[in-house]
């Protein structure tokens, strides 16, 4: 029983990452109709916002320590971060420790800016081009963004730990009446789940309850009519693109303590996020979120050794298998709208 509860938690946790990435993708892909292969790169850029901030905070000046030597026998130089000089050693250390949560504030404006620049400078010109051209240009962009990050940060994963206050696990077992210690879950992963839930809710609320959101939704449904009404839908779509970039970026920032980011992480998620969006159904935000959680939970269960004993290798393919089954039984995914990206 507790094993199953744990796998459900795992599934929700994985699913929240999938859902968050897919949400941003479907805002662009399912609503603006742009096949954005650079979406994974946006996720990766978000993660590197956290890395960059943590590096910025650790910017140091060198102090030579004559009492110790380095590996070649020369006097050792010790780096002292500037924040230590400004805030004192303990406060400075605390600020560095909190780099990842602080990076949320740092990433939002940067990611919105990147999204807006991307849309205005590039994607805008491709709304009316064939999907094939969109794939080529966004794939090219994704490679360029990746290589730029690789040039500055290298290819190796960069450990970006959560604040030490969040290291450790929450004991569900004790709360739910099981044996203490039987169901524990890391704090940061729980935070990730709640963070994802809040971001998803905020995006929905924004589209559902604001005039801006209403216009955008109208524009998605019938762009021409909205334009005829004298509304500048283009400007709103630009903002939507910035929003989608910010959502992807935040997913990346918060993901860094879970897995050390590297320049390639966007590509690892790209295919999966497309599968999630399509299984959810084109043009449906709730569909993307639902599919994200569904695939997360299924993936979690498929990795149990009890399952693998019956079906060896099922963990390798389960997501794709489920995608095929869903698409064959429900022609437009779970909640897709008719006519979106069907030709």
């Amino acid at each position: 029983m507790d094993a199953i509860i744990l796998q459900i938690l795992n599934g929700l946790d994985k699913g929240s990452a999938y859902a968050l990435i897919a949400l941003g993708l479907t805002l662009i892909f399912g609503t603006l109709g742009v096949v954005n292969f650079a979406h994974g790169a946006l996720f990766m850029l978000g993660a590197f916002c956290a890395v960059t901030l943590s590096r910025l905070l650790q910017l140091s000046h060198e102090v030579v320590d004559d009492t110790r030597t380095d590996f070649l026998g020369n006097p050792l130089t010790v780096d002292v971060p500037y924040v230590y000089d400004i805030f004192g050693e303990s406060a400075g250390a605390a600020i560095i420790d909190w780099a990842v949560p602080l990076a949320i504030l740092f990433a939002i404006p940067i990611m919105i800016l990147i999204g807006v620049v991307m849309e205005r400078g590039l994607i805008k010109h491709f709304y009316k081009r064939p999907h094939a051209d969109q794939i080529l240009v966004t794939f090219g962009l994704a490679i360029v963004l990746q290589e730029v990050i690789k040039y500055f940060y290298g290819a190796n994963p960069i450990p970006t730990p959560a604040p030490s206050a969040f290291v450790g696990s929450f004991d569900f077992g004790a709360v739910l009446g099981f044996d203490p210690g039987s169901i524990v879950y890391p704090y940061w992963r729980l935070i990730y789940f709640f963070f994802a839930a809040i971001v998803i809710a905020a995006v929905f609320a924004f589209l559902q309850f604001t005039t801006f959101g209403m216009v955008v939704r109208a524009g998605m449904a019938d762009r021409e009519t909205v334009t005829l009404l004298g509304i500048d839908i283009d400007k709103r779509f630009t903002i939507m693109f910035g929003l989608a970039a910010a959502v992807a970026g935040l997913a990346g920032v918060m993901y860094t303590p879970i897995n050390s980011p590297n320049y390639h992480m966007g590509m690892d998620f790209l295919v999966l996020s497309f599968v999630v969006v399509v299984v959810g159904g084109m043009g449906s935000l709730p569909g993307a979120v639902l599919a994200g959680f569904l695939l997360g939970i299924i993936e979690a269960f498929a990795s149990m050794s009890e399952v693998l004993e019956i079906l060896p290798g099922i963990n390798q393919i389960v997501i794709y298998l489920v995608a095929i089954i869903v698409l064959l039984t429900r022609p437009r995914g779970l909640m897709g709208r008719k006519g979106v990206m069907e030709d």
Partner: protein
Amino acid sequence: MTDQVTNASGAPIPAAQTRRDARDRVLGLGKKDFGLFLLVIALTMLAPFILNPFPEGSALSQFNAGYPDLMQRFVIFGIFAIGFNILFGLTGYLSFGHAAFLGVGSYAGIWAMKLLTLNVIPSIVTSIVVAGLFAAIVGFISLRRSGIYFSILTLAFAMMSFALAYSVLTPITGGETGMQLQYFDPRILDGPLEPGTTPRANLFGLEMAASYQLEVGAWLFTFNAGYYIAAIVMLIAFYLAIRIFRSPFGMMLRAIKSNQQRMNYTGLNSKPYTLAAFIISGMYAGLAGGLLVAMDTQVGAERMFWTASGEVVLMTILGGAGTLIGPVLGAGFIKYFENIVSKINESTLEAWFAFLPGGLSDAAVAVVYPFVGKGWHLTLGLLFMAVVIFLPGGLVQGGSKLATVFRRDRNAGPVEGAAAEKRQAAED
């Protein structure tokens, strides 16, 4: 070939026009098509010269691509892209899992070499047949959906193939370390090899690796048996592709692309046509996979990873989807970068810029270095963007623009340019 392409509304051109065209046909090809075919023949046959323009040992010889492996890859991936274009360029169905057919074809090919004979013909035939069967299954299921749903279905099949080949199917695929030939493989048609010898793919005794080298002054040209065999196969594949493009069947496929609904309303069932196109294109991929094995006797599972499927999509779009020669150009472009630009290292650059004074030479190296060697991906990404921004019809359009500059009659667009522009018009 404006006359054979469907008109803007997607309906076939009246038969009278086609008949008028039939007068000057060679090999069943129209005049312009035949010209294009001759051009491709000339390019492939003279490739060892064309691709090795720089003298051996000169600083620019780094850009020479006229060695067997890369020439083979050019034509093999050309075949792969031609086949992909039959599906994507004609019907508009964007398969994102075509590498699976290439991979399955490769595995079939190497098993034929292990079990039957080192002769490449049975192996290639096996590749085509097995890939065709696999494509029939995948196509039958995936073609129940269209648009992005179709793309994701094909992607899912390819990713499952990759994942299984890399892990649980290791006994028959070799998994991570791939499949190679061994001298102790059974090979029932050949009889056993002498212990310890290296098995080599051959065509009735002519080994694929056999080469003849010609030295002219400072230049060195390599004529490789395997390359010419692959090139001839590509020419056949290219010829068949032209015939498919110009056939009533091809016209039907174009009609499906421009308006499937209308097709269905006229009482025509489009599914058999798209399925046929899918299988043909899967067999092309299988042929490419079989040739890869014939030229370089090993298979690795990464051949089926989604990036490999993505690569053929990029090749086709980059060259010009829906054009005949475009995908081949796109394939050559990408493979050239992968194999040539990635090999330029810091010391090569230092040699190039050695003529500059010290500081300037270092600066030049520092500026260029991020774009070559380990940075070759960056250059490729920038070029993808540049091509799609400035040449919406792909490389073919670039070629036709260039040709128009040198042409007296600037209004007469060349064969492929017209198709590229048509494609633009049709998809807008």
